[in-house]
């Protein structure tokens, strides 16, 4: 039974981690210029 509590704890850590990363990404306004970011990998003319 104890392993379930551990699993839940680890799962919640992952949830919190992903939420923090999502909040960070939103604050960086990456979603605002996703068009530009999507083009960066094919930028061969720099």
């Amino acid at each position, binding site marked *: 039974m104890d392993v379930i509590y551990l699993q839940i704890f680890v799962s919640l850590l992952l949830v919190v981690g992903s939420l923090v990363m*999502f909040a960070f990404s*939103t*604050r960086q*306004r990456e979603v605002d*210029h996703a*068009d*530009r970011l*999507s083009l960066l990998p094919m930028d061969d003319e720099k």
Partner: protein
Amino acid sequence: MALAVTDTCLHCGSALENSRDGYCCIGCRFVAKLLREEGLEKYYSLRGPTGEAVTTTDNRDRKWLEPLEEHVREADGIARVDLDVQGLSCAACVWLIEQLFRREEGAFRVVVNPALGTMTMSVAALFNLRRFVERIESCGYLLGPTRKTEKSDRGLLLRMGLCIAFAMNGMVVAVALYAGAETSALGPFFRAMTFAFSCMSVLVGGSWFFRSAFHALRRGVLHLDLPIALGIALAFTSSAWAYLDHDALGYFDPLNVFIALMLVGRYLQQRVLEQNRRRLLADDGVEALLSRRLENGRPALIRCSQIERGDRLLLAPGDVVPVECTLDAPATFSLDWINGESAPRAFHDAVPAGAFLAGDETRTLTARQSFADSALIDLLRTPARSGDDVSTFWQRFAQLWTVGVLLLAAGAFFVGMRVSDPRAALDRVTAVLIVTCPCAFGIAAPLAYQIVQARLRKAGLFVRTTSFLDRAADLRRIVFDKTGTLTTGRLVAVADFDSLSEDARVALVNLANRSMHPKSAAIARAVGQKGFDESLVVAEHVGQGISLHYKGRHYALDKRGFTADHQLLLPIETIEDLRADAAREVQALRDAGYEVGILSGDAEARVATVAAAVGIREFRGDQSPSDKAAYIHAVDRNDTLVVGDGINDGPAIATAFCSGTPAVDRPFIAARSDFYLVSAGLAPIRLALEAARRLARVLRISLGVALAYNAVTIALAYTGVMTPLLCAVLMPASSLSSIVAVIASLHGESWHRVKALEPWTSSTSRSS
């Protein structure tokens, strides 16, 4: 040849009405040529088959650039320059601007943000900012100083993401409870977790609706957020009471899903409108107007609001006269902006505020009034339409829904008390509050609006106000301005230019290409630039025309036409350039049952000519801005759409039930209209009206389905059959079915009928 067989513009991909050379307008032809010359054809592969017509005008006032140029020149090292960009629509636009930026000397870094319509550059002192701005604007974009406010939907996006996470994680735990964990040792822990997720969900997501409903109530408006906020508050309170009182599972799981879905709906609703609003340069009204005042004999750039009576002003060709002025010498001015006159006039003594200098020489003027007394003030202070307006339909609906839900909840409590105890009665109240949450229209309706707005955006019509599509379904009358709306605002020269000798043709090229007068510009477009000689000198005779000595002869362009040694060589007539689809669209609108009219400040005879050309019987000329507003006030029974482009249309646009504009080169009118057009033609207006009617039908069906669903679930709640598990299944199922119904309705057979009106499809001509 490829040009002969194409039925869409080679640059923007819109349908061609009268294909001259494969392009829908002069702007598209120019930009396509520029991209070819610069080796930037990759733009087309990045953009896809359709784009936007280049409808913005050239010769823009760029006085706002001067302080920025000084900032760059005086920078010690790298200077940062922030600009607002109008016209960004996709990744191809970003790529194009970045490529053009890299080709400039002193360019270091640029970040283009199409969502916000902004651009941030890092440049060295040798960077030629003016040339870069001119190159970007020649591609059809407009640049301006950064003025956009930071009002962003970022907070909503963050809330939506968090609430989706809470709902999904809460659902994982709830599934375990429904599967049997409720009675296990983990049951209390899992129930505590769903309660915790629900608390966070209400805190993060619910607060958005609480705040919105509170603000709406303070303004005396019954917003759709009120029943949503009420539903969240009551459902959470009753579920929390049930959990804290007797450790019941409660309706936390459906509530979390509900909040997440409502936020998705709200985000969808705001996203397109926000993007459409940000796409334009910000409108600063009178503060945006700049002028040059002579101070100690030197011109100084000032805000027009600083102009006092007696000030000496210096005007360059294309500049606006900010206040009524006395002229030092006669000059030609265009009154198009303030009264809609299509042809410029010569002024000898005084010139009114709002006129544009149309000659090709600078002029010195003396202000006869301070800017506070200028006639421009009233026109520029026309209030802007709020983008967050709520239509009467949704207000009434919110009112009925709120009252209905509260009565039903009271009824459930009464029934519960009659057949059982207070705890069971409260459970039934909770069930009613949960199942009547306006889930179906909270997500399905915003999705329907989003689909229609996105489709209109693709057609070149950008909706700015929330309630426009609701109001557009009731329209019965459409009133167009003439100059710049039914016409392109340009003139077309009609003459047999091929009959001229080579010398005469070269003389005409040199005359026409040296003047900014609209008639000269029309002739220049007709004869081209071949033979243009920079060394030749052209004399301007205000009110008389322009003249030139070439190979021993005296050539002139005057009212009669083109003369050589004072003898008429070629009579040249100029006519207004109708939008290519104007006549067809007017006819189609009349066939659809709309009354169509013209309201113009131009001379009655000119209005009559255009009205006859497009097939409009109802027209009025010589209308002042207040005349236009009075007329609209008299005829508008909440069924009139005004489409105009100048500030003389501002009062009429503010008075009308709905308004739109094809003028996006100056943000003033667009910022006060329900929609703006970026297409070369008027076809998107008809598309919007058809789409609005279609949307109204879809919403009625969607609401009918929601009411039927609620009738069934309320009956279940009243009889005490409703359980959290049943609710957790029914609520997302009803939302999903509503979403599928909306998508199917808007993409079904009847939507294709609307789609056939779209100007970029080859079926356009068939539809008319």
